[in-house]
């Protein structure tokens, strides 16, 4: 982000948004939790609230909608905020980095920063569910293309990947592995089958599910080994940053070595 001239400030004393789990227990409380973050953002100043996690993105946007649409929730949230000397008017926009990079920074500016084009790298663009459904306004629910555009600007080859918005299994990979891991397995297998070198994702839980369970997936079905990284890590590579700076060494399944990239002295 700094590389592209975007200034980020950590939200003062942010709290957990509650994710899908809190919504299952009590929606009013979940909205209050999320509203605290929105109110702190509003107090900080006229700026957007940026969240790289799909669940945070969804819960914060859902709270905005709920506060707007349902008087009962709105009253509860306002009363709770008042108890903490906070207030929320609905001004703060909740945005995902993909949205900001595509619409505010723009493809042309991204292209200009590329010093090491990802030539020859075949990427399967995987968006997952909660960024594009149901509240996103910056891309389509079933066939989003913003990340495709960014990856193409980096010089990568986009693999046609029709499963791009299918669910990864979320926390079911841990709680009901038979069901959850199969969903991750299908995504990995399809990317391998279509000849991708790497899956590019925009969500931390998708990244974790597609990266961390390869041994269990192999035990249950068959190996479907392919690396899964954040799209921003691929951007960093193309911008000339070191893999270690980008945290690429923290992957369970490391990215494949590519002759074209190695020539430009990248070490994974």
């Amino acid at each position: 982000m700094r590389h592209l001239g975007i200034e980020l400030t950590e939200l003062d004393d942010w709290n957990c948004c509650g994710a899908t789990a809190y919504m299952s227990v009590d929606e009013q409380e979940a909205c209050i939790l999320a509203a605290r973050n929105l109110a702190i953002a509003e107090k900080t100043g006229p700026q957007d609230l940026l969240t790289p996690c799909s669940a945070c993105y969804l819960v914060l946007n859902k709270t905005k909608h709920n506060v707007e649409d349902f008087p009962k929730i709105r009253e509860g949230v306002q009363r709770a905020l008042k108890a903490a000397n906070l207030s929320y008017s609905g001004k703060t926009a909740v945005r995902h980095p993909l949205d900001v990079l595509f619409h505010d920074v723009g493809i042309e500016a991204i292209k200009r920063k590329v010093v090491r084009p990802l030539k020859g790298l075949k990427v399967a663009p995987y968006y997952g569910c909660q960024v594009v459904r149901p509240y996103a306004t910056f891309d389509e629910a079933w066939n989003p293309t913003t990340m495709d555009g960014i990856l193409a600007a980096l010089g990568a080859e986009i693999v046609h990947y029709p499963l791009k918005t299918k669910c990864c299994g979320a926390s079911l990979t841990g709680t009901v592995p038979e069901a959850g891991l199969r969903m991750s397995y299908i995504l990995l297998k399809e990317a391998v089958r279509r000849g991708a070198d790497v899956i590019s994702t925009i969500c931390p839980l998708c990244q974790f599910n597609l990266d961390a369970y390869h041994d269990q997936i192999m035990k249950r079905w068959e190996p479907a080994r392919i690396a899964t990284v954040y799209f921003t890590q691929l951007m960093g590579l193309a911008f000339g940053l070191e893999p270690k700076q980008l945290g690429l060494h923290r992957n369970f399944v490391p990215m494949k070595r590519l002759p074209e990239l190695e020539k430009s002295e990248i070490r994974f």
Partner: protein
Amino acid sequence: MVEAHMMKIKRTIKYDADRVGGFGREIMSVAGCDQLPSCIQCGTCSGTCPLTIYMDFSPRQVMALVRADFKNEVLRSNTIWLCASCYSCTVECPRQIRITDIMYALKQRAIKEQVYPKHMPIPILAKEFAKMVLSKGRITETLLVMQLFLRANWRAVLSSWRLGLGLITTGRFVIKPERIERQAELDAMLATITNGNGKGKA
């Protein structure tokens, strides 16, 4: 002794007496669930849901059961817990029914009435997650997973040792407990509803 040899049977057709009058209306009164009456039972939700194959009632059936007041059937079904909130059904529904939100309303009700299957890890995860957010303001994944294993299935810890090891070697294993600084602020906010039942207490 005769009984031991008797064939076990279960009534599979529902009776009118199995219904709990008013249940459907209660669910439909939850924020976001009011479109349910317009369901045309087309089954688009069941077709687009990636988890229907594991469910005892498909999402379409759950819609019909809620509307017809079959409270015990839906609250005890595994459907509501298998829903991973991917919102495919909500986006696809031709009647704009927010099916994911109805699933949430059913989960909340099942937790409130404690009718979910014992040792089922999903509702336990939801409860432990909520408890941690309530008391610390943030989630420490490692501690949460430990709680979950202790309460749901401690044997799973042993089978997941490789995952834990992988997290340690990749430097992704977090053990330092996370918490917010102004917990009192959060407590004051939640106090306006927890005991006041929506009437305000702070």
